[in-house]
């Protein structure tokens, strides 16, 4: 009876824990295990190869190219979120008229799937049937018109813009909730001291927003290093054109199931799993470093 009283809470945890163990813990352990083997994904042709898969990934050019694209992607989105997102959050926080309307509209892309977002923009950017090129021509900017998604220079920036459109709401949500915790009196005190609105913001308000800065940076890091849907829809599993938009997500997918839709001849399941394990370890390490540095920055202000 005493034992029952002591552990009765465990019964409430057990069903959830069962799901968690079977569909999250087991596949995680299994991923680490399979990464040490050579296996195509089907059949019984399985060999233990130790860390060879990891060594191969770390010495292959596509892996670095994809990681570099993720990095460019991350830096661009990060700058966008911390400038445009913050600017719009500050405007909303001033509680202008129609504030409810603006907020409702600006948050909306967050609930729209990346697949839908990808389709909408594929069509808008299309050189044949899209509307961005005709609009540019009508504005007298016809020289800017191009086949955005098959242009080796502009494909990646185009994909980044599409993702930025979808993610903008998150930065506004996070900064707005941060701004609502900044006491109004602090800003007013700064203004009475003769500080301009900009100085007041930069020296008084922005430092108080550092928890939002941390949360948004970490969230963006996780979102962008796992990016897949937008690239898959806009550029296909090969990261067209010529791998210019290839990211780690598409690289792993393509390696696991083969590049062709119907053939799995070049599929290398265990190598793909090893790559995803490697990405997970690197991301966890960078993320921990990021959180550590940003928290120190929060404590300093």
């Amino acid at each position, binding site marked *: 009876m005493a034992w029952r009283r002591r552990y009765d809470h465990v019964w409430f945890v057990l069903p959830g824990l069962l799901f968690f163990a079977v569909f*999250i813990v087991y596949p995680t352990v299994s991923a680490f295990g399979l990464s040490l083997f050579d296996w195509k994904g089907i059949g019984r042709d399985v060999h233990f190869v130790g860390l060879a898969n990891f060594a191969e990934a770390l010495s292959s050019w596509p892996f670095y190219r994809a990681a570099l694209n993720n990095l460019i992607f991350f830096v661009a989105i990060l700058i966008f979120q911390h400038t445009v997102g913050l600017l719009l959050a500050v405007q909303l926080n001033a509680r202008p008229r129609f504030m409810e309307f603006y907020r409702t509209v600006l948050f909306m892309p967050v609930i729209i799937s990346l697949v839908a977002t990808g389709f909408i923009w594929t069509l*808008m950017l299309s050189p044949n049937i899209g509307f961005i090129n005709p609009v540019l021509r009508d504005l007298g900017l016809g020289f800017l018109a191009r086949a955005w998604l098959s242009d080796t220079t502009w494909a990646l920036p185009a994909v980044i813009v599409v993702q930025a459109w979808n993610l903008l709401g998150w930065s506004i949500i996070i900064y707005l909730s941060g701004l609502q915790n900044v006491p109004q009196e602090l800003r007013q005190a700064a203004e009475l001291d003769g500080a301009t609105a900009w100085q007041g913001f930069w020296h008084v308000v922005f430092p108080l927003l550092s928890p939002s800065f941390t949360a948004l940076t970490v969230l963006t890091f996780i979102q962008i290093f796992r990016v897949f849907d937008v690239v898959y829809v806009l550029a296909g599993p090969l990261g067209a054109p010529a791998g210019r938009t290839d990211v780690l997500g598409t690289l792993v997918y393509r390696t696991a199931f083969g590049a062709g839709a119907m053939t799995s001849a070049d599929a290398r399941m265990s190598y793909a799993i090893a790559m995803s394990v490697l990405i997970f370890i690197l991301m966890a390490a960078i993320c921990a470093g990021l959180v550590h540095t940003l928290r120190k920055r929060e404590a300093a202000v």
Partner: protein
Amino acid sequence: MTRRAVRASDVARHGLLAGACVVVLVPIVYMVIASFKSVPDFFTNPYGLPSRWVWENYTRAWNEAKIGITLPNSIIVTAVSVLGSTFLSAMAAYGLSRRERPLAMALYLLFIGGMLVPVQMIVLPLFILLRTLGLFGTLFALILPYIALGLPLGVLILTPIAATLPRDLSDAARIDGAREWRIFLHIILPLMRPGLAAVAILNGVWMWNEFFIPLVVAFKPQSQTMPVGIVAFIGTYSTEWGLVFASVVVATAPLILAYLLMTRQFVAGLTAGAVRG
């Protein structure tokens, strides 16, 4: 500040916000307009209204783009997964909220740690596991992983809420002879309602839109949800843009409608998720 300066900054503020709203709304409106266009209309009239409103895009999409199958699938998968993972999260959160009990803290950290595991890493072993369990071709291949993947966020949001519930309530009920289970259903669960809504909204939006897991485990329309169904359709009929956009509108409209009807709950839920996640 002088009145004129106030007015100037007001104009700038409304200009910025309205400009951003236009950038957000144009693609959404464009999607709806595109869903009513005929194929030649896309070429001759790229950014005007349809020369003829082709409602058949929707009826044809229902059959040809298989949304007559994938829409019910999306509804079933999302509804069952949201209910399942919210309910199991609430149970786990209630059990874990007494942190002084043995194991509670360790299990809590284990659940939260699940947030760090990327879907990309587990989806391949999951593929093998589901194939072994014989779940391929059924909606359970999506529902069971979704329930599990919804738990970390649910536990993260609900455990602190469960911990703040007054203990005397359940103690009083216990003295009255109520069993733990009935205390949970009739006292604890109703008190957690705002937290449950946040969890259901966050997980629901994610599950409705999720693309990667069905891309890997669902090959036929019978077991596909809308996002993968649309991508599979475009692979076969890549010029039928009107049908594609009719499907995209059908896949997007339910969420936008729910968002417009419950903006306050969505904003609260998304804020809770963004700041904690």
